[in-house]
């Protein structure tokens, strides 16, 4: 019953896929952003698992960078959602097609 990095990779892949399914299936853009956060968390789990396996803290440093980029992404994305909602009164991505054609 030894927990190897392969187990953590499986968990990370499953979390990643759940995030991808959320992005593909849901139509509420706030939930799509939350799915992106789940995807970034899956990446972080992988980085920290290998940091633990290799006894090297560099993986954790990169996880800190991923968290910083996730915070920036959330701030800008939610700003865009608010600006869009003020104009179009919707958070449905199927109606967000003003720049599509």
């Amino acid at each position: 019953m030894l927990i190897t990095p392969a187990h953590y990779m499986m968990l990370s892949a499953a979390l990643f896929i759940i995030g991808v399914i959320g992005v593909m299936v849901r139509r509420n853009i706030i939930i799509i952003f939350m799915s992106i956060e789940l995807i970034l968390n899956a990446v972080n789990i992988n980085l920290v698992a290998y940091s633990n396996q290799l006894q090297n803290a560099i993986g954790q440093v990169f996880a800190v960078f991923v968290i910083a980029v996730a915070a920036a992404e959330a701030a800008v994305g939610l700003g865009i959602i608010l600006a869009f909602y003020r104009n179009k009164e919707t958070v449905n991505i199927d109606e967000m097609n003003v720049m599509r054609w």
Partner: protein
Amino acid sequence: MGQAIAFYTLAAFILGFAVMVISTKDTVHSVLFLVLDFLFVAALYVLLGAPFLAAIQILVYAGGIVVLYLFVVMLVNLKRPPEAHQDPHRMTKFGLGLSVAMLVELGMIGASSYARSAPVLVAPLAAIPVSGNTEEVGWLLYTSYLIPFEIASMLLLVAMIGAILLAKREL
């Protein structure tokens, strides 16, 4: 044995709450499940011997980003549910099929690499003159990764100003 029990319990909670995040109808419930998911991921970091990152996860994700999401959910007053509008061109089934195909591929890659028992990589011994998790991460951040660290701080500053500009009604 204890580590295995802890890992499987945490993994079950993480995946279960992740499924709840993308499957609940109410967006507020979705945000709350996201908080629980982040807390269990932080517990997994503790299990992996990264308590500094666990604290950062709780402070930044569960404390900061989720509050931002809650603010937006409360500000966006949904008079009609966002799922009501159906786009006839939308291929939800196709997207779900693609996601499942990706899951199968990743599972096959993982299973094959697991069966092949990859060679144990020997980590190069980094000359870190400090001991302790937080000290190691801080030492690396301020020596080898100083420039990426400064770029990340600049990115956060730009994102903050950009978010204010985007969300402001008029300048």
